[in-house]
């Protein structure tokens, strides 16, 4: 890595205006992330329009801060209300909420903030080491490899929707279908425009994102709005004691790298990272019986892991332009809207931007840990603001955001349709990430596929030519059949065990 560009990024991120954006973004993100049921994806989707008219670097810094803030905020509602905002915050409820119930809310908040902070730092270090080599590797990718990489990402994200893979496929296919709307860039053919001129440019995927993550989530939360419990919690001193730190120290340091690696993998992300680190710690702990009853390390480990995963997930996003999860897909949407095209070339063409981004995540971590510990009283007060007031405001923001995309109220109807679709998906327990991901990478996927086939005069053999392609195909097949293989192995073991029992 070039040290001078890194330093340049650091100085840019430290400019007073940019620091201010980090603070504002972190604060706004924390607030939206704290709302029960809403997570980082919603926070970024709703707050995208705030970056209008800003220069791309500041806008990027603001988006990163919002994303990060929402991760921190998500832990607040997990710990205090037992309502995680998204998948990656679920593991924080296992021990965080019991701690809060035992009157240790302050300690829990402090541990979670510090663990997130350290996890984030570990991951930023990993980012610096890994990002550039990976970008150089990605330069070798042609259309065929890109197509296969996207296929792998989609299949990985589907196979992770364990127990509902059929629904995952349906979600992905709807997303792919939506991505074909509009003029076909290779031939100029109009597809699915229904004679509406506005649709000739296709459906802006930001509308899909805002519709599903903002409108859909709010509609879904209306189901339980009259039942949301009011819990007054005494926060107490926001710091942990020596014993808690001693128990959490190593779990935090172990979970950081685990989370980072999981985050880099396509399709995985924060939810898997935090689950893996939680179960790992539970297995190796001498006090595993305390897990689930308010063990500080049971909170520290997943918090460290999910934060470092969120940084790790930025690597495939920035180096290859491929988001690994729903939340990073939303981030990709924000980047593209700012005129930044992530991919291997970004590191060549705009290293200053990349390193400013990385440094702003680093500084954002520091700022957020301060916000979350110093301003905890204020944050808890905001958490007291009735959701009944905040949800309508989020709806209004979703509409404003949509309007700023194309200055046309026609998009409002699309927004409502996707909001309703989002509600249906939640009601019928469909995973949302495959749909969002497919909408975003869909048209690139198709174009890469056709370019690859075109370059080989119509032969599909082009997908089996390079070792990279073959590796990607093998990984795709493995990811799809992994759940099945695991099931077979488990069944066989069980059979084996029962036979042994019979024998004995």
């Amino acid at each position, binding site marked *: 890595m070039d040290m001078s560009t890194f330093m340049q990024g650091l100085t840019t991120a430290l400019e007073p205006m940019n620091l201010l954006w980090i603070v504002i973004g972190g604060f706004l993100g924390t607030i939206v992330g704290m709302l029960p049921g809403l997570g980082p994806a919603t926070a970024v989707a709703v707050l995208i*329009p*705030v970056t*209008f*008219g*800003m220069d791309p670097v500041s806008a990027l810094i603001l988006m990163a801060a919002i994303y990060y803030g929402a991760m921190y905020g998500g832990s607040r509602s997990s710990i205090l209300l037992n309502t995680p905002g998204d998948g990656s915050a679920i593991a924080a409820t296992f021990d965080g909420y019991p701690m809060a119930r035992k009157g240790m809310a302050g300690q829990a908040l402090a541990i979670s903030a510090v663990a997130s902070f350290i996890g984030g730092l570990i991951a930023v270090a990993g980012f610096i080491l890994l990002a550039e080599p990976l970008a150089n590797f990605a330069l070798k990718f042609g259309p065929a490899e890109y197509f296969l990489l996207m296929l792998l990402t989609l299949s990985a994200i589907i196979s992770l929707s364990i127990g509902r893979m*059929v*629904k995952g*496929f*349906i979600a992905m*296919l*709807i997303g*792919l*279908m939506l991505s*074909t709307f509009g003029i*076909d860039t*290779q*031939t*100029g*053919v*109009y*597809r*699915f425009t229904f004679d509406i001129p506005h649709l000739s440019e296709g459906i802006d995927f930001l509308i899909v994102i805002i519709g599903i993550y903002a*409108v859909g989530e709010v*509609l*879904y939360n*209306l*189901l*339980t*709005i*009259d039942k949301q419990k009011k819990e007054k919690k005494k926060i107490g001193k926001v710091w942990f004691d020596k014993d808690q730190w001693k128990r959490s120290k190593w779990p935090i340091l172990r979970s950081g790298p685990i989370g980072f690696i999981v985050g880099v993998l396509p399709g995985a992300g924060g939810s898997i990272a935090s689950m893996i680190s939680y179960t790992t710690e539970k297995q190796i702990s001498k006090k595993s019986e305390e897990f689930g009853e308010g063990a500080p390390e049971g909170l520290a480990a997943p918090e460290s892991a999910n934060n470092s995963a969120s940084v790790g997930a930025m690597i495939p996003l920035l180096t290859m332009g491929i988001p690994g999860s729903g939340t990073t897909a939303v981030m990709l949407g924000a980047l593209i809207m700012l005129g930044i095209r992530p991919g291997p070339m970004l590191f060549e063409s705009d290293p200053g931007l990349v390193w400013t981004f990385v440094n702003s995540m680093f500084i954002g971590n520091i700022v957020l840990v301060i916000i979350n510990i110093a301003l905890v009283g204020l944050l808890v007060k905001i958490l007291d603001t009735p959701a*009944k*007031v905040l*949800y*309508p*405001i989020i*709806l*209004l*923001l979703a*509409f*404003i955001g949509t*309007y*700023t995309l194309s200055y046309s*109220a026609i998009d*409002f*109807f699309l*927004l*409502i349709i996707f*909001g*309703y679709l989002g*509600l*249906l998906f*939640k*009601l*019928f*327990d469909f995973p949302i990430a495959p749909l969002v991901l497919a909408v975003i990478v869909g048209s690139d996927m*198709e174009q890469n*596929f*056709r370019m690859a086939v*075109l370059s080989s005069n*119509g032969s599909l053999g082009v997908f089996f030519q390079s070792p990279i392609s073959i590796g990607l195909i093998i990984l795709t097949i493995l990811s799809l059949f992994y759940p099945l293989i695991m099931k077979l192995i488990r069944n066989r073991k069980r059979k084996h065990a029962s036979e042994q029992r019979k024998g004995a």
Partner: protein
Amino acid sequence: MKAFKIGMPIFLILLSVFFLVGSLRLPKANLGNPYGPLYFPIGVSLLLLIFSIIYFIQELRKLTEDNEAIKELFSGRTPKLIGITILFAIGYSLLFERAGFLLSSIVFLGALLFLINGPKKWITNLVVAVIFSFISWYAFSEMLGVSLP
């Protein structure tokens, strides 16, 4: 509730048939391979149809199982709440460019607050609707230079 539960797979099957027929009827390209723009949508909609049918069969098998979220949907005031929210949103979409941002947003936000937060808290509702609409109008159109109607 059963009808609603089985409605989803049926809707998906109809949707995929719609896409499949639409894909088959797409115009051929004058440039390059005439079927180039057709392969992908046809393939995707065909797969969508297959998976929707699998889903339909899966759902038929467990039609009698309870789904908490859907139960919630049909309980108390929720169906009304969601339906009216969507109606308000449609109204807002129609009103937005005609009545201008500020007026339509105050009406929309106010209406939502009265619906969700309840008419008892009408002072809060009014204050929030007016102030928040005004702040967002000021922030977007004055500070960020977004031209709002």
